Structures are given as structure tokens and as C-alpha cells.
């Protein structure tokens, strides 16, 4: 088998880690340092807040990590709003922005050359190589027209939305407000399909008047808006897509979709779809062998929180958190709801372990938006991150709560238990702001997972992981041949010398409206060799790799 494998262990020199060790504290705990000011990333999310309290004003979130120039380093794409009521980007302050990673801790704004400034009131981003040319493409979900940008391989993108037919997810003749999207090869035909989560019926300056404190106009509770179905586009392989929402059963179920995450919860080889809904039951679309979907969230136990209530589902992650090979689900919500954590028991049942895991207690007072799962300290256990901020910009005028909140890190202590260690992660993690977007990726190929966050009507921040505990790691860049080129949907299992295994999936879809680092990353602790790596490709091919050295990215090509 080995001869079938093309395993290129890219040297640590190629992915030269730029070590930035915290000067004042050499603690071996998780630490982050804000490098925004010296990075050259100068981006403000402009939502155009108005007295009319238009619902989208409080929700812009999207961030994508995309190596658009294939130089091996993730670049940053940030979503932006537009003027109200025109919902057009009337000036450059509303542009979406693409920042090229200069590999030295700085970034360069390449938006205009790339042609990614956008034109409407945008919400979310999703990275996927839909044409299998080896260059990542970009989909933008929007209140207005959605866009598909094809990578031209020269630092520019072409807007191919109209040809592709993915610009107008429609319900009752109207373009739906799309909040998030994700790439998934739901039928395992080797071509990436597109799932779009739509939020609610809405028209500019026609929001109901919702008063808080008996006097202050505030953003209305989602219950005042009508829900919408999600949209699934199947990739025809010729640059066009077809809306298969109805024939696959996706559009039967209505929600207020925000977080979208994919994984194969029952191990049948087909990717399932989880949608975190805002104040409506979550949806879990079980993939019926690529032909159709059945919505089973209530049956399997992920529709509601532990007390049978629909919470304000926002960001979502769908990855194995307890190293048992079964993907679990964790999503954010607002204050007083806790952030539900559902452990996959393996028999198509999820158990709500929010309280038992220690997640309930710290998250009870948090208002969460995007989230993410990654092993920040490379100890072999995936930790949790949440971007926080109250929904209501005037909350402090009628509540003792605050609009700005600090982000949080919950460290995985093993056995599906977590502890909020935010206060130990450095002063830069303590900065409160109305955060919305949040995405995880290894920006500097250092083996440490960094975080990018956006702030509503404030500056985006890059939080570099400067944890210095000496733990080892391994990461993989997959390249599909029969499967889709990015290997999205591939399941990766690693086994270390002690016989323990870890699992992850290749997926860019995570959090709220975000697109994360697609490269599976594993912390190895003291281990410097991974005894075995097993990749289960979407095509069904199983691939084994042996004795891979740690602290490297390994390129794995589907045999």
C-alpha cells in the first residue's frame, strides 16, 4: 500500500514556524497574543446600525481562512455589511476584505486586485474548491445576492454566481436572507455541493418595534420573524449547480439557520448536516446515501437543550471531542441558555452533557456567536473557543449585562469535561468587545491553532497562539483524486505509540458563518511519531500511513 501513497512530509523549514513566545510569562498553559496592530490587518465590520434596529445589523460575522494563492499559508477574508436602507456597499468602508499572509506575521490587503470587495449586505463565507482545480474558491452568503467567486489562480477571482445559479436561494418568489453556507459532497460524487442556511423573512426598515425597558427600541427577538427553509445546491460539475432542496427533503423543514456543520454521525460514509437554529429546534439532516435527507434532530436528541427548550443556536461545531471516533455537536447560544454539548453515544443517540461536562456553568452567562474546536495546547484533546458579545447594543441601558464581552477558551480536561481557563490565557484574551465572527486556523504553520475574530462596528483581531509547552503536533493537507480535490468529508484517524487514537474531519464549515482551516490538526503531547494514520476518503477509499514524524504538515494524496 505504501507505494500507492504520496506522502510528502513538508519540512519544518518550508512551513517555517515563526515563534513568538510571550516575553513575560513562560507558562505552559494556553496563551494568545493579539498581533493585529503589527499585522497590517485593519478591518472594521460596518453594520450601519440605525434607530430602526434592522435585524441584520447585529449579526454580521463571516470570516474565512483561505490559502487563495496556494503558497501554503492561510490568508484571511473578512465579510462586511452595507449601507442601510440601500443594502449596497456605497463606499469602501463596507468592502469585504482579503488579506494576504506575508508569512512573517504581517498581512497585505489585496481586496481590490482579488475582486472580492462585494456589493451587498454580506453575512458569511465558505471556502471550497468546487471545480476541483486545486485552487480554493469562495462563496459569500448574504442578506442580498449571494456570490460564488472562482479562483483564477493569479490572485484574482471571477464572480461566477450567475452562471453557477447559486445567487438567489428563493422562497415564495423572494431571495432569502442567507446567514451562512458550507461546502459538502453530500452524494460522494467527487464534486463539492453547497448548503446554504437561510435565516428569516425580513425587509429593510420593516422590523417590528420591540421596546426594552418599556421605552428603548431594541433588536427584536427572533420569534417576531418567519422562519425559512435551507437550500442545497448540487454541483453539476460544469460550473453550474442545481437546487435540490425539495427533492432531497432539505426544504421540508423550516428554521432560522445560523451555524452549519457537517460530519458523518453514524459512520455510514455519507456526510450529515447539522444546523443550529436561532430560537427554533436545531436540525440534523441525516444523509440517506446521497439521495435524500431525513431530519432527525429531535429523534436523536440534538433539537433542544436539556430542558426541552429551543435556544438561540448560533455557531456550531461537529467534531469528536472525546476521542471515541464519534463526532459530537457543540453549539453556542445566548445568556441564560448555556451552550449545548451533545455527546454522540454511537447508536444514533446523542446525550446532552452540557452540565456534566462543565460547559453549562461558565457558559450560562455568556452570549455566544461563532465558535470553534481545536487542540490549542497540543495535548491531544480538542478545546473549545467562543466569540462573545451581547445581541443588543443597548443592553446596558435596561439590564446589568454589558454589550461587550470577552471571548472564552474552555480547555478539554479529558473524559468529556471542560474548564473555562480564559483568565489564564493572557491579557489579550480578556479584552471585551461585541465580538461576532470567530474562526480557527494555523496562520503561521507553527503547529499552534490561532484565532481570528471580528467585532461588530469595531476592529477585527488576530489572536496568535503563543502557547509554549513543548507539546508535539501533526497536521495534514489532503488532496482528493476520486474524491473532491480538497478532501472535504475525509475522516482522519491517528494513533500514537500509546495506542490512543484521535479523530477529525476535513471540513471548512464551522462556527457561525465562518470557514476554518481545512487541514486536520492533532496535538500529540510528548509523542514525536504517529504510529498510524488512517484516512477514510469520501470515495470510500481507505488509506493507511505509518510512522509519520511529528511537528510537520503532511500532504496526503488519495490513492
Amino acid at each position, binding site marked *: 500500500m505504501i507505494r500507492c501513497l504520496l506522502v510528502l512530509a513538508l519540512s519544518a523549514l518550508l512551513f517555517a514556524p515563526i515563534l513568538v513566545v510571550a516575553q513575560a510569562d513562560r507558562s505552559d498553559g494556553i496563551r494568545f497574543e493579539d498581533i493585529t496592530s503589527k499585522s497590517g490587518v485593519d478591518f472594521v465590520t460596518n453594520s450601519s446600525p440605525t434607530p430602526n434596529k434592522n435585524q441584520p445589523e447585529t449579526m454580521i460575522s463571516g470570516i474565512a481562512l483561505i490559502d487563495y494563492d496556494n503558497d501554503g499559508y492561510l490568508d484571511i477574508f473578512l465579510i462586511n455589511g452595507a449601507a442601510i436602507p440601500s443594502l449596497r456597499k456605497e463606499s469602501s468602508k463596507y468592502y469585504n476584505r482579503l488579506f494576504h499572509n506575508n508569512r512573517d506575521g504581517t498581512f497585505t490587503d489585496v481586496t481590490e486586485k482579488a475582486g472580492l470587495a462585494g456589493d451587498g449586505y454580506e453575512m458569511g463565507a465558505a471556502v471550497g474548491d468546487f471545480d476541483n482545480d486545486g485552487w480554493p474558491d469562495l462563496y459569500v452568503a448574504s442578506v442580498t445576492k449571494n456570490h460564488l467567486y472562482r479562483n483564477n489562480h493569479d490572485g484574482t477571482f471571477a464572480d461566477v454566481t450567475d452562471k453557477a445559479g447559486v445567487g438567489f436561494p428563493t422562497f415564495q418568489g423572494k431571495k432569502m436572507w442567507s446567514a451562512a453556507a458550507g461546502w459538502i459532497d453530500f452524494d460522494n460524487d467527487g464534486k463539492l455541493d453547497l448548503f446554504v442556511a437561510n435565516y428569516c423573512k425580513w425587509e429593510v426598515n420593516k422590523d417590528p418595534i420591540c421596546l426594552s425597558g418599556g421605552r428603548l427600541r431594541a433588536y427584536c427577538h427572533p420569534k417576531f420573524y418567519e422562519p425559512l427553509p435551507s437550500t442545497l445546491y448540487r454541483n453539476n460539475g460544469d460550473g453550474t449547480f442545481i437546487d435540490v432542496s425539495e427533492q432531497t427533503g432539505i426544504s421540508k423543514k423550516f428554521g432560522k439557520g445560523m451555524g452549519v456543520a457537517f460530519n458523518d454521525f453514524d459512520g455510514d460514509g455519507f456526510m450529515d448536516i447539522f444546523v443550529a437554529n436561532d430560537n427554533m429546534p436545531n436540525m440534523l439532516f441525516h444523509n440517506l446515501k446521497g439521495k435524500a435527507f431525513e431530519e432527525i434532530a429531535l429523534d436523536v436528541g440534538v433539537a433542544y437543550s*436539556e430542558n426541552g427548550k429551543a435556544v438561540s443556536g448560533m455557531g456550531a461545531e461537529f467534531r469528536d471531542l472525546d476521542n471515541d471516533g464519534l463526532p459530537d455537536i457543540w453549539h453556542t447560544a445566548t445568556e441564560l441558555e448555556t451552550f449545548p454539548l451533545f455527546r454522540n453515544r454511537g447508536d444514533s443517540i446523542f446525550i446532552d452533557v452540557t452540565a456534566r461536562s462543565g460547559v*453549562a456553568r461558565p457558559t450560562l452567562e455568556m452570549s455566544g456567536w461563532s465558535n470553534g474546536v481545536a487542540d490549542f495546547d497540543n495535548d491531544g484533546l480538542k478545546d473549545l473557543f467562543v466569540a462573545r458579545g451581547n445581541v443588543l447594543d443597548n443592553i446596558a441601558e435596561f*439590564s446589568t449585562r454589558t454589550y461587550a464581552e470577552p471571548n472564552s477558551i474552555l480547555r478539554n480536561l479529558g473524559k468529556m469535561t471542560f474548564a473555562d481557563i480564559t483568565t489564564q490565557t493572557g491579557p489579550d484574551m480578556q479584552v471585551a468587545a461585541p465580538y461576532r465572527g470567530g474562526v480557527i486556523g494555523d496562520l503561521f504553520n507553527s503547529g499552534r491553532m490561532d484565532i481570528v475574530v471580528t467585532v461588530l462596528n469595531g476592529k477585527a483581531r488576530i489572536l496568535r497562539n503563543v502557547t509554549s509547552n513543548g507539546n508535539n503536533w501533526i497536521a495534514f493537507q489532503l488532496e482528493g483524486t476520486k474524491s473532491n480535490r480538497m478532501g472535504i468529508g475525509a475522516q482522519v484517524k491517528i494513533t500514537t505509540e500509546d495506542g490512543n487514537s484521535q479523530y477529525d474531519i476535513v471540513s471548512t464549515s464551522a462556527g457561525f458563518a465562518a470557514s476554518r482551516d481545512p487541514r486536520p490538526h492533532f496535538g500529540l503531547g510528548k509523542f514525536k511519531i504517529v504510529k498510524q494514520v488512517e484516512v477514510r476518503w469520501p470515495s470510500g477509499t481507505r488509506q493507511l500511513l505509518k510512522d509519520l514524524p511529528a511537528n510537520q504538515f503532511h500532504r496526503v494524496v488519495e490513492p
Partner: protein
Amino acid sequence: MAVPFFLISGHHAIAFQSADTTPSRKTADRESFEKLAARAQNAMNAEQIPEAIRLYAQATRLKPNWSEGWWFLGTLLFDAERFKEAQNAFTHFLATEQKQREPGFAMLGLTEFELKHYEKALAALERCLKPGIQADPQFARNVLVHDGMLIAFFGKPELALQRLTLAANQIAAAYPEAPKDHVLSDNELLDAFGIAALRMRTLPSDLNSGKKAEVRQAGRAQALIAIQDRVAAEIEFQQLLTQYASESGVNYMYGVFLLKEHPSQAAGAFRRELEISPSHVAARIQLALGSLETGEYEDGMAFAKQAIDLEPSNFVVHVALGKLYLELGKTDLAIQELQMSVKLSPGSPDAHFALERAFLRANRKAEAKRERAEFERLKALSDAANRQ
């Protein structure tokens, strides 16, 4: 032909359609009745109340199926504080009016309240509210405040607070220029709020002078919560706690407030309540439910068991205990408790959901499916009611 009419009698303003009236009398009688009705209306318009009452009474004797006449007669009698006769008039109104009966139930309920027939009053007011109240804000406020008072009196303070919150919001909506001032100047509402929030089983009229100030202060805090001004509510709470921290119910009420503001501090308030009121069931339930979030399951178990000893018929306690058993891996005991909760409150979606979760843990999938179906059915009903 249905004739729309609008009545403003005292402060009970209602618009509705009268029932069709079919001539069933001789022509002479009809002429006589029509003259009488016109004279009654003129007297009412001229505010000659005793005369209007006399004429409407005469007209309704002449034509007993004249619902409009019974309505006017009832409201005039009510405003004249002749409640026994008003009760009779509204009873006749409800017997003769087929289309718009809700205002009749409302007025009958208010009348029964004045007669101190509290069970009958509550039943009538609830029948008025069942389809959702659609009346002018002041009338809606009257109905909701009296309904809230009675629900608290009969021992359901949480439901009472829901009704009173609706009343506060009716007032706030009616006076958008100064909603808070109007809500806080409604002493009847404040007292009703205070009683419900302190979980007292009494009526404002029965409060002794020593308790009135405490109830009023608690009512101010609760009214501010109702209109979502939690900053102002916190200030009122601090005053309440300064003066009445050792009174029963005050710390519990503050704990409930903290659950929405600083839940980690709420347990302290509930524990203080238990020091003051050792048999306080609701505080124990809150502590048991809170332990489900903090993971302090053994502590929660103790509180839940004590609450069951004190109030074995409270289904929420059984839900809490069942969930605690489930977290501790005692699935069979969990199912027993949750089955009890469903038995005690078969209409509670929460109880069915918790039981469904327990059956799933026990791999009793068929039973889980049955509970899930019932949960979905009840949840749909509950959601529909909440949308009204």
C-alpha cells in the same frame, strides 16, 4: 341585522357586534320596546344612571333575549356598585349573546370578584382570556390584573406574574410617552405584582397595613422587571432588601431576578430564603434545578427530596429529581420520578421531554418515541398559545 355598538360605561369600554334580534312580539310590544330602548339609551347618554337602569331593566323584561340590553344594564349596575344585580344581568347577557361572549365573561368575572366569589370570578376571567384578549388597553388591564390577583390567591404565582406582566405591557403600550411612570403609578397593579412575586396567597384588599409597604416595594421591582427595565429593578430590589431582607419571600424573589441577571449569585439568595422560611418549596426547587447546571448533583438531590417531602404533588420537583438521578446514572429511579411527574402533570411538555430523555438513556426506544410524540404535540399547543 347585526349592529355594531360601542359602549363607554364608566371605565369599561368595549366594542362588539350585537346579536341579531328577531321580532317575536306583537307589533304593539315591539313599538313599546323600541321606545323603551331609545329612552334607556337617552338616559344613559345623559348620565341619568338610575333612570337608565330602570328603563333597561324594563326593556329586558319585555324582551328577555335582547343581549345588548343585558350588557348595558349589567355595566350600569356594575358602575353603580350593585354587583348582585349586575351578576344577574351579565348571566343573562351570556345566555343570549352568541357571538361576542368574551366581554360578558370579563364583566361577569369582575362582578364575581366584587362579590368575593373568587372561584367563579377566576373561571369567568379565564374564559374571557382563553381566546386572547382583544379590547382597549384599560379594559384588558382590568381583566388581566384581576385575573393575576386571583391566580396568585389560588397559589399559582408564576402564572399570575405572566398575567400581570401582560397587564403592565398593556399599560406601557397605551402610554408610549412615559410607560414606566404609568406602570409605577398603578398601585392596584403594583400590589398584585408584589403579592405574586412574594408568593403570598392573599388579595391586596386583605393586606394589613404592616405588610402593605413591603408588598408595594416588591411590586415596584417586579413591575420594572415586567417592562424589562432591569437596571431600575435592581435599585428597587436594593431598597427592598435593605428594609425587608428578613421577611419571607423577599430573598426568593431576588433570587429569581438574579437567575436572569447573575445566575451564579441566585443560589445564595435561595439559601438565604431557606434560612428565613425553612419550608419554602420553591427555593428548594430552584436550588435543585440550579444544581443540574452547576453539576452539584448530590446537593441538588437533597433539596429535591426535601421539596418532595413538603409538596409531593408538585410535578416540577419530580422532574428535577428525575433529571438528577439521570445525571447520577440512576436511570431506573430517574424514570420512576419522571413518570410520576407526567402523571401529576400530563399536559406539561417539559415532563414528557425529560421522560423521553430518560427512556433514551435506558435504550427503551419505543417508550421514548411515545413520549417524544406527546412532547411534540404539547409543545405545538404551548407554542401556539404563546404566539397569541
